[in-house]
């Protein structure tokens, strides 16, 4: 076999492949992708490529070559591509995109029962590798040409990886590998998500087209699907469906370390969504997510100032989680809760003077110390318009009577049931 001295991780992987030890090979591949194998950079590329391809002149090697080619044709190529890609990536040169494409496009041969694990692993790498490439390219760009390329690298990589997945998807469809279909769709969704193209992400929803797909796919893909689907629905203000999908994730998460981190990720979105359903997190949960503490209590109490403070204090977090847009709707919810309090204090009478609301707003929003009647009118009009309150405003400037007449059960509409898009 190959001499021990020159043995590097690629050759080790190749040997694992040959012996059919996929799991060990995969752990080695993981090390490479995570950037732990810096020793690869020191290799003489041509020499290593020759070694990998078994292009030595000696008779023994030629024999080996024949054998290797016959039994493991894809692995040799895969490792060659991997080496080239790795070296180019660390250099930050423009060729890296081509090598990236090469590496991930030539993986069709992995589409069978034995190798599907490795295939899945590679699929998941596509998205994460993209961002590493862009970062390195930006760091190493020097002349104007390189700068130009680096600035467009994100887009090209995005389209390239989409192409890769579409091609893979076609292959998967041809071979009818039920298990990999959802994985493929999820990865496409992920790419769109990272590029903030939520509408497009909603388009690659394959589950709606194929009903059985969700149940025949492996659990982990199901969970991923529910997570992304839920998040898309948040952007469309469909809170009931979003809540269903996200709770599905929470229920199906395994109680392992990875599963718990997954659950944490979901809870970040589930807590604010549940507030629309009238469910507020318990103390134990809040202790783990301190940023939601003030937010939840303020919304529950109808405390506008507190809500504003919570938004401003953790602004970075909301932006990072793309939840800042949701805060406007939370504010509406907060106003609604405040109005409900006023109604309860007035012992559920049908007619409440607007002065009462004015007072309440003044208390809950100390900064805006003197809200005019018209401002109060506007906010309540919006609530009525959204059907969060059932009632009408009576305004008579001449007689100086401002009142709001309410129906029998004015707050019967739950905040998640109304149409937010208007």
């Amino acid at each position: 076999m190959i001499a021990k001295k020159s043995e590097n991780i690629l050759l080790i992987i190749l040997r694992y492949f040959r012996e059919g030890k996929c799991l060990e090979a995969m752990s080695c591949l993981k090390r490479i992708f995570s950037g732990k194998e810096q020793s690869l950079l020191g290799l003489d590329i041509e020499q290593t490529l020759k070694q990998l391809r078994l292009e030595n002149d000696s008779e023994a090697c030629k024999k080996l070559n024949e054998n290797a080619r016959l039994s493991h044709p894809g692995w040799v190529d895969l490792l060659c591509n991997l080496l080239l890609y790795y070296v180019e990536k660390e250099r930050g040169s423009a060729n890296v995109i081509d090598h990236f494409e090469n590496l991930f496009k030539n993986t069709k041969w992995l589409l069978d029962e034995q190798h599907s694990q490795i295939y899945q692993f590679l699929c998941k790498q596509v998205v994460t590798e993209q961002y590493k490439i862009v970062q390195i390219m930006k760091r190493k760009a020097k002349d104007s040409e390189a700068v130009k390329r680096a600035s467009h690298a994100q887009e090209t990589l995005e389209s390239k990886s989409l192409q890769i997945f579409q091609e893979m998807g076609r292959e998967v469809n041809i071979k009818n590998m039920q298990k990999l279909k959802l994985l493929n769709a999820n990865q496409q969704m992920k790419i769109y998500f990272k590029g903030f193209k939520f509408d497009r992400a909603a388009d690659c929803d394959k589950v709606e087209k194929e009903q059985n797909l969700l149940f025949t796919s492996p659990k982990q893909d199901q969970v991923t699907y529910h997570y992304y689907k839920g998040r898309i629905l948040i952007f469309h203000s469909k809170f009931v469906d979003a809540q269903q999908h996200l709770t599905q994730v929470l229920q199906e998460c395994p109680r392992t370390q990875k599963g718990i981190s997954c659950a944490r990720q979901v809870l970040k979105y589930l807590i604010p969504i549940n507030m629309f359903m009238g469910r507020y997190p318990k103390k134990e949960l809040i202790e783990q997510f301190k940023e939601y503490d003030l937010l939840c209590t303020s919304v529950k109490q109808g405390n506008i100032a507190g809500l504003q403070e919570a938004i401003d204090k953790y602004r970075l977090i909301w932006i990072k989680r793309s939840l800042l847009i949701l805060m406007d709707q939370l504010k509406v919810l907060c106003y609604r809760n405040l109005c409900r309090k006023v109604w309860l204090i007035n012992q559920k009478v049908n007619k409440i003077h607007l002065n009462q609301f004015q007072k309440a707003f003044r208390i809950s929003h100390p900064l805006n110390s003197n809200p005019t009647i018209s401002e109060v009118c506007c906010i309540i009009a919006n609530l009525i318009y959204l059907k969060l309150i059932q009632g009408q405003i009576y305004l008579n400037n001449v007689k100086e009577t401002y009142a709001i007449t309410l129906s029998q059960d004015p707050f019967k509409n739950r905040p998640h049931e109304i149409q937010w898009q208007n």
Partner: protein
Amino acid sequence: MNNKRQTIDDAMKAEKININPYQPQQQGNYQNYYGYNSNVNYRYQTNIPTQYQYNQYYQYNYQGNANQQPMMQNSYYRSPQQFVQQTNTCFNQQQNKFQAPQQQQQFNNTLQPLQSVSQQLEQQQQQQQSQKIQIENNNDHQFLPPVNISELDQPTRWESELKVYTHLYRKLNVEMPNLVSARFCNSREVFNEQSSITVKQYVERAFNKCQSDDERNIMEQLLKATITEAKRKNEYTTRDWSKFPLPTLQRENQIRTQFLSSNLPIKQSTAMALSSLGQTSKFGAPSQAQPSGPAQKITASTNMHNLKSLYDQMIQQQVESINQNHMKNKKIDYSMDLAILQIGKLQPNATTQIKQQQKQLKKRIEEEDQIIETNMKIIGTCEDLEKPYFRLTGLPDPNMIRPEHILKKALVQLLDKWKNCQADYNFIIEQFRSIRQDLLVQHIENRFTVQVYEENARICLECGDFPRYESCWTMLVDLYEMISISEGKDVNLIGNKVEFDSYRIFYLTMLNKQDQLVKILHQNLDDQRIKFALGLRESFKCGNYVKLFKDYKESSETMGSIINHFLVRIRVRALKQIVKTYISNIDLEYLADLLAFQDVEQFKQFMQFFDLVRFDETLKFLLIKQSINAFDNINFDKMNE
């Protein structure tokens, strides 16, 4: 004009020289070549001498003579089936523009069966000299009924037909030149064996390359070798002949090397590429497509020559087709229908080769573009501060382009004019366009470029020209990114990015585009202007119009003008809300104050504009019940008029 002979014809002639005894037989079959006669049993093969090895694939060329002759004589009594065939071929002829001279040759050949090669050549020259003689010749032939020549001279006749066909092709999205292979399609109806067709195409392509008789002889031997080899390997039926490489001649090798080494001047490059695109796609006229001499350089002038000759051929061919149509009682409609069917059939296999060639050419063009980009960095010399905008059609002229320091002065002057209201919007935009063009041509991408685009975007926003703003914005995003990478700074510190982001946030809020908004918010963390824009968004979403209009009065100049453009939408939305939630009639003064109108009169005008006047008699109150559904279908297009 036409010293290049049609090659298959030539190839046959070359054979004729070799074996004299079979000459008449072949000539009788020439008309058959395009599948003229349907009643001939093509599967039937007479005993063929061994010299005609590849005749097996050229079955149609060597049919029994006996079948042919009576048909020739009885050409006036054709069976209906035959009729159909005829219409087909007629149409194909019309498609095969470049086959026309060939057919004429055939007719001539039948007239004079015992011609030597030299005579034939002479005759060809005669053909080239005058068309009319040819037509007369054709008319003499019994195959064609007499045609009134004066009728042919009228250009309208064939022009109109040409128009019909070109229109048809364009409608079908089929390139005209591809139709050359319609002929093969036609013969497919005759030959059921798929393989024979592809082999036929292959052989024909091979002969198309040849330019002289010597070459043809060599090619014949080469082809024989390849085909016998294929037979020996049992690949004859399975091999993909359309992709199998043609045998190469010595001459070609020479040309290829020379072509690669020769450096074409840049200006001619695109013209050349275009012309060669046209040429290579028409492999029906191959003798023109291939460079005929080793030292030949393709230039624009030769292209023109080629075009002329093509045009002449086209005319000739049209005349032919009219003759044919006469013969068929002008059943054009029927043949057109058939043609449509055929086009559908031939499309896939005919285009593959052309696509490959086009790909190669595209590559070459790209390479040349790169050369232009790298070698030609233009620095302008023009010193005018104001320059009208012209769309560039060729390479830029340095005398017409302003260098950067002049552009800076021009920008300052332009902004002065805009602020002092000395120029109208159209003038300013045109000036900006020319500045941007100059920047683009000189590859200037620095902070000054950012400034130009920012000012342009600002003016567009102030005037509500949102499509132009969008184009400026996409450019700005690229520029910010590029400069931040090259200078190694945070993106937000470049130019006035934060300010423009805040404009964008409000703009996207009004258009209700969530995903882009999230993207912008991701880049911006903490800034007063961003917060202001977000505050506007919040008060819009919460329906707090009092606060919204308060902010509107306090906002900066540009932001104010953006809000101005969406003001109508905001007001209509507010009114819609009010109308649906209030039960008492509302004082107009109160509404005007709420919606930030200057006075009641302005509010009344606003309501009149949208035909929403539902006031009481004293014109003091808005009647709520009457206008409850009035705001559902507001036509905002009215605004733009």
